[in-house]
């Protein structure tokens, strides 16, 4: 019969073992999530990991990915399997958090999931700096719902006004659309594309907030400054845009609709190529009109899922400034690495300074030499002139006198000063760039962060 100590230790081992099993199980799932090339497995693992809780008491894992992170990891995997490009995932070395950023975007923006905490589960795909929720994703219900308002506010109302190009915006739109299409195709998801839908026969449903007043007249007046013009069609208006694309805005009679008219948009290009969002991105006059009419009507989205339109915006600068890398590091390692980097930077700065000083000294010497030579030449010339003068006027005056005059220090210093100034200004940028990182602009930080964790799919 085993004694009490044996039992105690056995139980202890058992508890730890249970925890280790649970951890091992989760690790296996995580590994499959990131390694499997079988979409079904990835989906299954994602579904499990976004609900699992590794709150083991005996063996603790201090650093874990959150449910929201697993959503993004899964999204990245699916987009990788689908060959979607144009984005990167930021990988801070000091914590297990992932953020999606666009590789080509000239405004600060970072995307991540936010877990939906109510009983419906799922997560919102959010732009962190603005808090705009772009879509909702439920793995277990196989459902994706895009948020027309959030996407338009971000891309059309915000980015486009900050000179993000149509192409850059379209990369984001394409990424979202492709992701939705992949999930629809591979897993038979129910996807509410709304503003992203490109099918010609798709009639955009609208949320009508108020009865339109002179809505089409306004669009007509706006179109007057463009090469496009609004034409009347039955119950509405249409405008022929580039690339054989026609936009229609019309109503159908419906006693249940506000004002008994149910309004719709339609984008027809003959190839199922363009969505309402594409139209807004490409044609400023339509975008401006749409944004000014959103109090009247807007492209419809699920008003229950997006009852709360935004997440609390956060300062995303720290996401970009964090040390990036594929190998996780513990805090002390990070500190050590930082110190090493600082030391290196300091050394580089000192070296640059020394070099600069040496260069300055050299320049000074050269300048002085040049000045002396110039002075000597001038002196010679003047002496000669003086000598000539002396010859003609007063032969008693010593010929050396003018030479003393030209060697007065004032003239020499004035020349060296300008040379020195030139050297200093040419050295300045070197010293600055090799100095501490605090001098970098946000854009530079973003660029560096992107370079260090470029994650575009291989092959």
């Amino acid at each position: 019969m085993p004694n009490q100590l044996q039992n105690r230790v056995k139980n202890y081992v058992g508890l730890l073992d249970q925890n280790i099993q649970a951890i091992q199980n989760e690790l296996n799932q995580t590994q499959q999530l990131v390694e499997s090339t079988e979409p079904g497995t990835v989906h299954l693992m994602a579904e499990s990991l976004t609900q699992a809780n590794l709150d083991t008491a005996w063996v603790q894992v201090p650093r874990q990915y959150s449910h929201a992170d697993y959503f993004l990891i899964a999204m990245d995997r699916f987009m990788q399997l689908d060959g979607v490009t144009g984005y990167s995932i930021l990988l801070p070395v000091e914590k297990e958090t992932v953020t999606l950023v666009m590789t080509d975007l000239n405004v600060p923006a970072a995307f991540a999931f936010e877990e939906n905490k109510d009983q419906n589960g799922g997560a919102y795909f959010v732009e962190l700096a603005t808090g705009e929720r772009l879509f909702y994703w439920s793995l277990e219900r196989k459902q994706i719902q895009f948020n027309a308002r959030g996407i338009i506010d971000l891309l059309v109302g915000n980015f486009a006004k900050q000179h993000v190009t149509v192409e850059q915006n379209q990369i984001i739109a394409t990424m979202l659309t492709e992701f939705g299409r992949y999930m629809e195709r591979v897993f038979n998801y129910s996807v509410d594309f709304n503003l992203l839908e490109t099918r010609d026969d798709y009639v955009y449903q609208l949320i009508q907030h108020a009865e339109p007043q002179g809505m089409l007249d306004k669009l007509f007046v706006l179109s007057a400054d463009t090469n496009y013009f609004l034409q009347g069609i039955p119950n509405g208006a249409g405008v022929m845009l580039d690339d054989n694309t026609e936009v229609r805005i019309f109503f159908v009679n419906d006693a249940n609709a506000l004002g008994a008219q149910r309004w719709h948009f339609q984008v027809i290009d003959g190839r199922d190529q363009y969505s309402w969002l594409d139209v807004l991105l490409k044609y400023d006059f339509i975008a401006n009109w749409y944004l000014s009419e959103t109090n009247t009507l807007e492209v419809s989205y699920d008003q229950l899922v997006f009852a709360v339109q935004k997440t609390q915006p956060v300062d995303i600068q720290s996401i970009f400034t964090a040390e990036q890398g594929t190998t996780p590091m513990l805090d002390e390692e990070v500190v050590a690495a930082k110190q090493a980097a600082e030391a290196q930077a300091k050394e580089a700065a000192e070296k640059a300074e020394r070099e600069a000083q040496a260069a300055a000294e050299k320049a000074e010497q050269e300048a002085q030499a040049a000045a002396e030579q110039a002075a000597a030449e001038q002196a010679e010339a003047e002496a000669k002139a003086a000598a000539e003068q002396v010859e003609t006027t007063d032969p008693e005056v010593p010929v050396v006198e003018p030479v003393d005059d030209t060697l007065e220090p004032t003239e020499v210093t004035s020349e060296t000063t300008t040379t020195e100034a030139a050297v200093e200004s040419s050295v300045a940028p070197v010293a600055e760039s090799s100095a501490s990182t605090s001098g970098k602009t946000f854009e530079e930080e973003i660029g560096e962060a992107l370079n260090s964790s470029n994650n575009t799919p291989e092959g």
Partner: protein
Amino acid sequence: MENMPYIQTEIPDNENVLNNKLSAKVKYVEDVTTALNEHDDRRVYELINSKKYNELIRGVEHADDNRSLASLVADLQPDLSHHLAERLIQYLAEAFPFFYYQESALGVFELYFGNWWDRAYFGRLDPINVQFKFKQEEYQKLVESVRLAAKGQRYHSAAIDELTKTNEELQQLVEKQGERNTQRQSLENQLDHLDEKGGFFNRPSTEERDELKAQLAMLDDEDEQAETVPDQIEKNNATILAYSKEDTILIYEQRAINEKFGSFDQFEVAAKALYVDYVKQLAAAAEGGQADA
């Protein structure tokens, strides 16, 4: 008396004349029928108004009219109009590409300027007389806007500026609410002050009091006006939008005319010469066709 024979009234025989006249009518109707069947619209125009045709196309001065014959087909005008419109509208699609037509009743063609949003109803097309019958109101607007365009103005520029100014003033009325409230407070204080020191014997203060009350009444008026400002601004904005829309339409109309004719004057000349240009073109086409055959 009984045997007195009455001399019978002799009626000259005009059977020939009548026959001639009748056969002329028959021939006329036959000619029209043939022309219609052969879709020889030039001939139709000649037959339905020979005076106009001879004077304008053949250059005959003071040609006789054939009104009596033409009256034979007068009640067929809607049908004729419909028939003639077919080719005429084909021709107009080239000559006046910006006009659009809707046949609202048989042979009645409503004329619209342009295919843009809320295009103007511009009158009617009269295929029998080969003529535009422009709606005077719209036409005069266009004439006026052409005149203003030369000065770099739009038809409603002045009105829109005026309304914009009014809106700014109205907005100020609202913005000065705080100022008025302060002023009211001060006036009321002064009034209270007067009441306090006022007694039976302070008659002169009545004048002062009336003055204060008048100022307060003025503030009341302005406050009342300020309340209606949002409605007024909205109303004005709606008017501005309507004017802007009309200006846009007039700009499109001018642009369309200039693209086709180079100037509004050229357009007017072409519109007036439509009968001559069109019917001559039909004649030329017929001759060309015969020459080919």
